[in-house]
């Protein structure tokens, strides 16, 4: 079974919430962050990630693992904050009592945020002077390996029917359920990339061949496909695929 984040193809969602200008034209230039707390939530999450205590797959998995009720009710950056809170506790950067104490102060509005400017920074802390350098490098997932890809360009493949994460029930994967058990064609090979199904559980990078796979709209949606000529492309790791010689 999947989790709520795995929503590709789901029915029931309404019109796209497209912002419009007064003349009803689409607004391409809405602010980067709608509210100041959005910017803060985003920046704190990035900065905390800079401590190096977790990787991008772990942080994605924490967001996915929010209880369904919370996942649906929270706005985007509320999900980020909730997942970050759970990470801080689980990785023992913050204790539950420290968390409860500060929440108590904040709720009583009994908090002077700028009171302590003299705090000594932890040695892991991402410093402002390193921000541009770190952003410029990023976190490439491509790895040099001597693994030869099994599948060839234009080869027919079929995706596995169940979650490919065999280590952990309900574990992280990047194979969406809407393409499980479907036929596709290898469109390109992209080298070996860090395998999220392992990396999200701190079980090592295990880089594996990554392909771009083309699925016909009619293969995914049958007769309800909008146009049988259309295709959907996904980037899938080798363990998500099997040969299809039919």
């Amino acid at each position, binding site marked *: 079974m999947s989790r709520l984040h795995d929503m590709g*193809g789901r029915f029931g969602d309404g019109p796209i919430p497209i912002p419009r200008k007064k003349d009803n034209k689409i607004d391409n230039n809405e602010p980067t962050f709608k509210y100041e707390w959005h910017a803060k939530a985003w920046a704190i999450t990035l900065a905390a990630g800079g401590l190096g205590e977790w990787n991008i797959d772990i942080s994605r998995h924490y967001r996915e693992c929010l209880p369904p009720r919370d996942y649906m009710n929270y706005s985007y950056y509320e999900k980020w904050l909730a997942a970050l809170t759970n990470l801080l506790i689980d990785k023992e950067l913050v204790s539950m009592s420290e968390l409860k104490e500060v929440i108590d102060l904040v709720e009583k509005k009994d908090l002077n945020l700028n009171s302590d400017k003299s705090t000594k920074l932890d040695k892991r802390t991402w410093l402002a002077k390193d921000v541009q350098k770190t952003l410029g490098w990023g976190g*490439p997932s491509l790895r040099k390996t001597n693994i030869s890809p099994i599948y060839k360009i234009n080869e027919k493949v079929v995706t596995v029917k169940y979650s490919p994460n065999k280590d952990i029930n309900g574990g992280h994967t990047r194979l969406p359920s809407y393409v499980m058990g479907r036929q596709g064609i290898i469109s390109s090979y992209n080298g070996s990339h860090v395998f999220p199904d392992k990396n999200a559980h701190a079980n090592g990078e295990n880089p594996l061949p990554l392909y771009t796979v083309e699925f016909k709209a009619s293969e995914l949606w049958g007769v309800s496909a909008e146009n049988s000529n259309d295709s*959907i492309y996904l980037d899938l790791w080798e363990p998500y695929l099997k040969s299809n010689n039919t």
Partner: protein
Amino acid sequence: MISNKKHNHDHEDAHSHLPSDPELRVKAIETLLLGKGLIDPKTLDELIDTYENKIGPQNGAKVVAKAWVDENYKKRLLKDATAAIRELSYQGRQGENMVVVENTPEVHNIVVCTLCSCYPWPVLGIPPTWYKSDEYRSRTVREPRKVLSEFGVNVDPQIKVKVWDSTAELRYLVLPMRPLGTENMDENELAELVTRNSMIGTGLPENAR
């Protein structure tokens, strides 16, 4: 088998204690981390300033305009987008492995991330709210033409729609078609016509005035 101390995180989580007002939630986490020296307040300012003022769709627009005027650059861009984009000094976080997909008279491309909100930061900045919405994430793979029509883009049935669901760390940028009547415009003028949505696939470049 499972080395994680907290197995699957499917438990009563710490987040359930957070205040109901999101502004207070941010304040609580920020206070905690600042108090423990785990974040540098200047890092937060630097990050926000960078993505509000320096990195955004104006970067991608320059890539597109260059590809429109320079056939060799376009070839490099379609062959190795990461390297070609780096020629303009755009690189790094959430753009480590770039792929550029070209709109043609036969093909219209549109990018989505159904599992989260993957987006090419170095060339487009932080994704807009609608890109991260459930509506866009759920519907785009199943009914891309209907989604496109909501954005005012009506794709002829003869044209193939290609939807790119960014499920891995490859990040996609759409190279829209150069608008007609722009033969006399230079690269800078052309960049002004390239909208953010035209590089996601949910829009077209503006017409020449």
